[in-house]
């Protein structure tokens, strides 16, 4: 009897303790700033590193320390991981993974080459990118293009388990990185341009079994929404909030995919992510607010239950795909410390919210070119509270089908796309890679066919008029005031994730292929080096043998590789071959290379 009881107690302890262990492996990895266990560097998504040996005073001396070719010539997004003395490098489709021995000149310890049906390439809307690996519990997690989520043994590359998250035959694909929280692996889905119904799914880290799935649209039960307890701008969400915002059963092919980044607050036990555009791009074919596309979602990580939602662009008319990362910072507002969430949306507004309650605190344009809405209504008593006040001239819904709405800023690329921003607690500023591109947009009628593009609009893009002629800016942003501190003009969109460090340096990459280092206070350029191909990856830093390294994956592509490779034009101005209008292909070619920098010995 005694023995039996003891056994029971031990069993209970194990079940309770296991999740905490999984959590610890990531938390410990984040604490050790010499390592990289998650793509945004930490759960808060600040992309800030405590490593400070490379400073604003010596960064000008950086040299290339070593390089590695990935063997794949497609767009390279994301960044490698570093655990112990091993670097884990991922590639675009076919999604190979290499484990490199940092103690032995990057010798390949193991490689993983998944077998995927190449048909999936044809249904990936915007290149075969992948935003990188995640680490937890001795495993490396990869979400393959064909939606297979695999757990690899960190020592051997052996597949511990794998699970299929979607069906490429329906246009469901994967480009996102998983997030490891407690005993779960969280992963989203891509395919908004194929009418895919978006969802966030949690799998058990131990065996890959599905723990919960929360759809972006549809019945409350399938969205894991409580009509009474889930809040929207301080009010209960109410019954059938999504179903009531679509015509008929359009929500079933209504998009709201979840291909962006996810962040996590351990104290509140909430995860944060965004949902994408509603399908199609023709707004007249889907009357209503199209909930909950274009929405910031806060959910309990254990159950998936929604705590609060905020829809940034109700009834999207411009493809302002709302998936960008939500960065979690604590800052003082009007004398009180607040737990904040800062989101740089595709639509050109930067939102500062209370991440516990979902209260909207600040919504300001982070590119002065933004013109589709005058402002976000901040009056709590107003009927349109929290909604953008749309300018009729730029409303593709009001102008209607078969009408070309011109001069809309930003373009469908958004003022910022997937490229993650950084935040430095030392300066209190956000560093944001942006696009400075406008568009003409003409919606028209389309028919849905499973696994086929479901777009429904023609658009042409061009550099923001009456500006510096370039297609990008790298800005420093004050999220409390809602103001740009400084802005560095770039010839092309800045499609690379930023990195801030305690050495008072901020790094970013450019589409021509430059890795650039600037002063975190002033934005002054301190160093640049042209890597072999355009950069759409995220700059990363790690420590090996007491030395700080900075690195980046080069390999132009992604959506940036579509329009920009050919050069953007303004239909109304014809082919003006000046400045920013020049084609990216004059500067760079396809590539797939890792370049790692260090200070000389």
């Amino acid at each position, binding site marked *: 009897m005694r023995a039996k009881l003891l056994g029971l107690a031990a069993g209970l302890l194990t079940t309770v303790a296991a999740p905490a262990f999984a959590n610890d492996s990531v938390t410990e990895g984040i604490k050790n700033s010499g390592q990289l266990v998650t793509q945004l560097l930490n759960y808060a998504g600040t992309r800030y590193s405590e490593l400070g040996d490379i400073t604003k005073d010596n960064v000008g001396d950086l040299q290339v320390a070593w390089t590695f070719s990935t063997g*794949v*010539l*497609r*767009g390279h997004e994301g960044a490698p991981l570093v655990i112990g003395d091993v670097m884990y490098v991922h590639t*675009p*489709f*076919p999604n190979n993974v290499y484990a490199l021995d940092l103690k032995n000149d990057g010798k390949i310890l193991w490689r993983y080459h998944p077998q995927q049906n*190449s*048909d*999936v*390439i*044809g*249904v990936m*809307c*915007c*290149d*075969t990118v992948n935003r990188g690996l995640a680490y937890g519990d001795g495993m490396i997690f990869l979400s393959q293009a064909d939606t297979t989520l695999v757990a690899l043994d960190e020592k051997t590359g052996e597949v511990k388990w794998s699970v299929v998250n979607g069906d490429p035959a329906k246009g469901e694909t994967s480009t996102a990185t998983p997030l490891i929280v407690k005993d779960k692996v969280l992963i989203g889905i891509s395919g908004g*341009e194929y009418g895919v119904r978006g969802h966030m799914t949690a799998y058990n880290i131990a065996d890959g079994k599905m723990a919960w799935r929360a759809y972006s649209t549809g019945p409350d039960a399938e969205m894991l929404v409580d009509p009474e307890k889930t809040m929207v701008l301080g009010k209960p969400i109410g019954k059938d909030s999504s179903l009531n915002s679509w015509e008929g059963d359009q929500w079933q092919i209504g998009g709201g995919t979840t291909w962006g980044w996810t962040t996590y607050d351990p104290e509140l036990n909430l995860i944060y992510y965004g949902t994408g555009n509603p399908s199609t*791009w023709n707004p007249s074919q889907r009357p209503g607010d199209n909930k909950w596309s274009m929405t910031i979602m806060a959910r309990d990580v254990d159950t998936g239950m929604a705590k609060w939602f905020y829809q940034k662009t109700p009834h999207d008319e411009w493809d302002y795909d709302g998936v960008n990362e939500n960065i979690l910072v604590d800052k003082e507002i009007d004398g009180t410390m607040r737990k904040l969430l800062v989101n740089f949306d595709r639509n050109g507004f930067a939102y500062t919210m209370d991440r516990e309650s979902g209260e909207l605190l600040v919504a300001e344009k982070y590119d002065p070119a933004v013109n589709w809405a005058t402002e976000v209504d901040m009056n709590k008593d107003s009927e349109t509270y929290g909604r953008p006040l749309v300018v009729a001239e730029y409303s593709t819904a009001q102008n209607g089908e078969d009408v*070309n709405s011109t001069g809309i800023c930003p373009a469908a690329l958004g003022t910022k796309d997937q490229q993650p921003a950084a935040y430095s607690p030392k300066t209190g500023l956000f560093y944001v890679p942006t696009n400075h591109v406008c568009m*003409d947009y*003409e919606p*028209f*009628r*389309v*028919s849905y*066919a499973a696994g*086929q*593009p*479901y*777009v*429904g*609009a*023609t*658009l*042409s*893009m061009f550099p923001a008029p009456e500006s510096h002629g370039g297609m990008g800016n790298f800005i420093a942003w004050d999220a409390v005031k809602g103001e740009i501190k400084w802005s560095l003009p770039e010839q092309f969109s800045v499609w690379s994730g930023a990195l801030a460090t305690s050495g008072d340096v901020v790094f970013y990459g450019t589409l021509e292929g430059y890795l650039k280092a600037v002063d975190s206070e002033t934005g002054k350029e301190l160093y640049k080096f042209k890597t072999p191909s355009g950069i759409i990856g995220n700059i990363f830093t790690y420590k090996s043998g007491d030395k700080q390294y900075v690195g980046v994956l080069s390999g*132009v*592509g992604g*959506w940036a*590789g*579509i*329009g920009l*490779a*050919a*050069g*953007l*034009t*303004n*239909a*109304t101005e*014809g*082919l003006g071959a000046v400045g920013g209008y020049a084609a990216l292909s004059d500067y760079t070619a*396809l590539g797939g290379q890792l370049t790692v920098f260090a200070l000389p010995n």
Partner: protein
Amino acid sequence: MKAGMPLLAFATFFANAAFAEEPNVEAVTNDGVRWFNSDDTPTYKIEADGTVDWPTFSGYRRYQAECHVCHGPEGEGSTYAPALKASALRMDYYDFIGVVASGRKNVGAADNQVMPAFGTNPNVMCYLDDIYTYLRARGTDVVPRGRPAKKEAKSDAYAEAEKACMGG
């Protein structure tokens, strides 16, 4: 060196020959919906003032919606898919239709190019002749990049054919 020269000359000759062959783009007949060349394959008709026939304008719209996410704006190509303004001139009309309907794969050590099959997609197939003539107009440079400034009105016959194809 001696052997190399003729080879090079041969290659140059071949390239020139391919370019020298004028694409058959002259509009000869019209069935009420669109123009055709002397081979009875669809073609564009651009008026002296730049006015584009409706199907070719429609091709611009549909191309920019369905094709440009891989093949780049206005048929210019991207970092991972070829410039279709060139392909549409090089390829036979029937081959072009076949590739769009059935897809094409070029997957190997250095290439990962997959063109999906659009055969079941009404948004592509109902407008494929339009897209074809638009791309040929781009290839021969009679239509510049960007949105065609002037276009012919949609004819009743075109509207009827479109409705029938898109299923009402």
